[in-house]
Each structure stands twice: as structure tokens, then as C-alpha cells.
């Protein structure tokens, strides 16, 4: 397994090295840092920023993330099923039935989320 992993790690090292190289090149080649108040302000189309750090956060981001986790786990279970499906069909319909149950439960979950207005206005 290391034979498959090692090139990926080398590639990761190459990418990180490239990023560091480019940033240091910019650091050396660019003009001296000259921070003026106008440059340092957060960009808001040119007008003065109103500091609204205490905005109420929208819960829908949190809901989307949680539903993503759950459906992602479902997809992870589907991956090993897909590659042995045709092979297992030789032994009978059991593999089809058990995945049918799995998908029915999760499709019901999707249906519930849809009708429960958890996917609205996002």
C-alpha cells in the first residue's frame, strides 16, 4: 500500500514547496509594504464599513452541513456495495433487497427533510 501512497506524498511535498517558493518570490520581488488606512480597510465597495460582527447567524448553513454528513455516510456505504453487486447477484436477490431497504430508509429521510422545510431558501 505504501507503493501507492508514496507518490501522493511526494506530490504533496512538491505542491507545498511550489506554494512556498512562489510566496517567497513575491515577498522578495514585490515593492516594500506600504500600509495606508485605505488599503487596510476591509473592502465594501468603497463605502465605510459598518461593523456588524454580531449578526445573527443563519441556521440553514448548519443544517446543510449536518445533512451533508448524513448523506455522505450513505454514499460511503453505497461504494463497496456497488463494486460487488453484480458478483453477489449470482447468489440470489438478497443483495438487491438489502440495499433496497437501505435506500428506502434514506429516501424517506430525504423526503422528510424536503417536506419539513429544512431545504428551503438556502
Amino acid at each position, binding site marked *: 500500500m505504501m*507503493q*501507492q*501512497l*508514496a*507518490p*501522493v506524498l*511526494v*506530490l*504533496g511535498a*512538491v*505542491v*507545498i514547496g*511550489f*506554494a*512556498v517558493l*512562489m*510566496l517567497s*518570490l*513575491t*515577498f522578495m*520581488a*514585490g*515593492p*516594500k*509594504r506600504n500600509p495606508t488606512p485605505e488599503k*487596510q*480597510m*476591509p*473592502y*465594501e*465597495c468603497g463605502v465605510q464599513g459598518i461593523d*456588524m460582527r454580531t*449578526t445573527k447567524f443563519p441556521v440553514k*448553513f448548519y443544517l*446543510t*452541513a449536518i*445533512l*451533508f454528513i448524513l*448523506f*455522505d455516510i450513505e*454514499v460511503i456505504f*453505497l*461504494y463497496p456495495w*456497488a*463494486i*460487488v*453487486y*453484480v458478483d453477489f*447477484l449470482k447468489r440470489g*436477490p438478497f443483495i*438487491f433487497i438489502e*440495499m*433496497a431497504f437501505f*435506500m428506502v430508509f434514506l*429516501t424517506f429521510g*430525504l423526503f422528510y427533510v*424536503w417536506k419539513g422545510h429544512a*431545504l428551503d*431558501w*438556502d
Partner: protein
Amino acid sequence: MGNGLLEFAINALKIIIVFVTIVSVVPLLVWVERRGSAFMQNRLGPNRVGPLGLLQLLADAIKFIFKEEFIPDHADKVLYFMAPGLTLLPAALTFAAVPFSTPVTIGGHTINMQIADINVGIIYIFAVASLAVYGVLTAGWSSGNKYSLLGALRACSQMISYEIAMGLSLIGVLIMYQTFSLNEMITAQLGSFNFHWRGLQYAVKYLPAWGIFYQPLSFILFVTCGFAETNRMPFDLPEGEAELVGGYHTEYGGFKFNMFFMGEYGHMITSSALITTLFFGGYALPGISPEQVAAFWLDHGAGLAQTLHLSVTDTSSLMTTLTHLLVFCLKTGFWLFFYVWVRWTLPRFRYDQLMDLGWKTLLPWSIANLAISATVIFFAHLK
């Protein structure tokens, strides 16, 4: 990575060459985008710098290096510098599992035209692609700008919503190929379209056994999700200039800004490469297997072998690899052009339309595709 030092060095060199190629293809892609969009909009694109404006992007890249480094007031300095690198890393790592040609054998050494032949290839690609949200989130947060943060959160929500549909649309394809490894998928797409129905084998001779003929709905879903994952039009609201200025990369300038786009185009390249590998036979020619190409070059490669001072088998292997590399580049290049084409044709989706499409249209259709595929194959294997 090979047993001896020589093999290790060859493989390391291969990795560096592939990475440098990707980094160089990105400016070429941007040139295609700018000229292509110009022609679609009935104007000229960049045509001053270099022939046909090809060196425009080189000039831009050099300009980026010489820009001043500024750090906004409320920025988190460490994360601000790390975010572009964090975007580039998954984009490059996903390309590791993609095979772009047949292995070449020169002088007894076999070099795989693939950075890493991972046996769980396609799900490795999806796993690393799902790490792309970190770059976006870190960039948005570390800018110290609440609009950047909002843009980053919206981009993140968009990307994760479409990842589910993308994974599910792939299940139909996986049922057909029964493997995760991309090399085996390409091998499975050789020959002509054939299927098994109730004990009998049927074949359609003039159609190649490409994935798109087995799973057309899966193809449509996958391409749509690919657009959304790479934040390309019509899904590029998080970067849309009318809405949030630059979204999560508003506060970035200079080469860091360039690295975000390298990450985005890198994802585009991997996405196009995946489309060709999964649905269009990868590096293989339709109807002609790599062995036949190798045999062709064995027969006709004697003259070339003499000029290159290599043995005939080595030359045949080299030319087979180059042929397949050309095929791969043409196919992937077409899909990259398709990305550009769609960007400048369709208007942008509104954010709620975008999320509705992901959860309420693509996800149910993916599940339907999976159900239909599984049922059809179940009946096909009944005796």
C-alpha cells in the same frame, strides 16, 4: 516508488513534470477562456502580447509576482497566507490517480503514466476533492471581511451540497465497472458495447463500450455536479462580481489571488479528465485496443527506431504512449473547452435556485438512477 534509487528518481521526476505541466496548462486554459469568451461575445480577446495573445498569461503571472503584499487590518496573518496553498493542494492531489496514458517501457524500466495507481482510485479522488472546502473557508475567514466570510460559507454550502449528488451519480457507473481503479475502468471500456441479459450476451458492434452509453443519466448528473464543485458558471455565485465583489478572494491580490485560480482550473482539469476516463474511454481510442496500437507501431516503427537509437519494442512502447497521451489530451481538452463554452452561454443561478437544484433535483435523480440501474441489472442477471 520503485526499488532502486534510479526508479525512485525517475518517478520523482515524473511527478515534478506532471505538476509543472498542470501549472503551465492553467495559463493556457485562461487564454482559451479569454479568447473563447471574446469570440462568443463578438469581440477580440487578448491579442497583443505574443502570437495570438498567448503570452498574455505569462505577462500576467509575472505582473502578479511584482505586486505589493498587503494584509488587511483584521486578517488572521497565518491563515491569510496559508489559504491559497490550502486551495492548491487538493486540486493537485486529485490529479494523482488519473491515468493519462499506457505505461511506457524503455530499457527494461516501466514507467506508469499515472502519478499513483491507487486501487481505490475514484473514491480517493472524491475524498481529496471534498477537502477543497478548507481552502475556501480559510480564505473567507482569514480576510477579516464579513462579506468574504459570507461568500466563503455560501461557496462551502454549495460545494458540499453537490458532492452528495456527484457521489451518488457515480454509483451507477461503479455498478457497471465493478471496480474503483481508474485503470481497470479504462480496460473495461475497450471493445464494443455489449451487455448481458438473462443468460445471453448481446453486442452492438459499431458502438464503443464507453460509459456514456451505459449510464447517460449518470453522465448528465456528473457533469452538472462537476460544474458546481469547481464553482464554475452557471454556479459561480460565490465568486460572482455583482453579488459579493470577489466572494472569498476579495481581499487577496498578487500571486495569492493567482493561486486561487490555479486551484480552480486545476479542479477543472481533474474534472474533465474524470469525465473522459469514466464516460469516454479515457486514453483509449474507440474500437482500437492499446495492444493493437502497439502492434501497429511494432510494424511501422522501424525507421523511427533507427533515428532514436532505441530498440523497436521500446520505440513501439514510446509511440503507443504518445498516441494515447494525445488522445487523452484531445478528449480532456474538449471537455475543458466545454466548461468555457457553458460559462459564457448560460446566465448565473441565484443562490436559492442553486441549492434547490442540488438537493431537490440532482439528488432525487441520482437516487432514481441508482434504483433503475440496480433493478435493470437485477433483472438482467435473473436466469
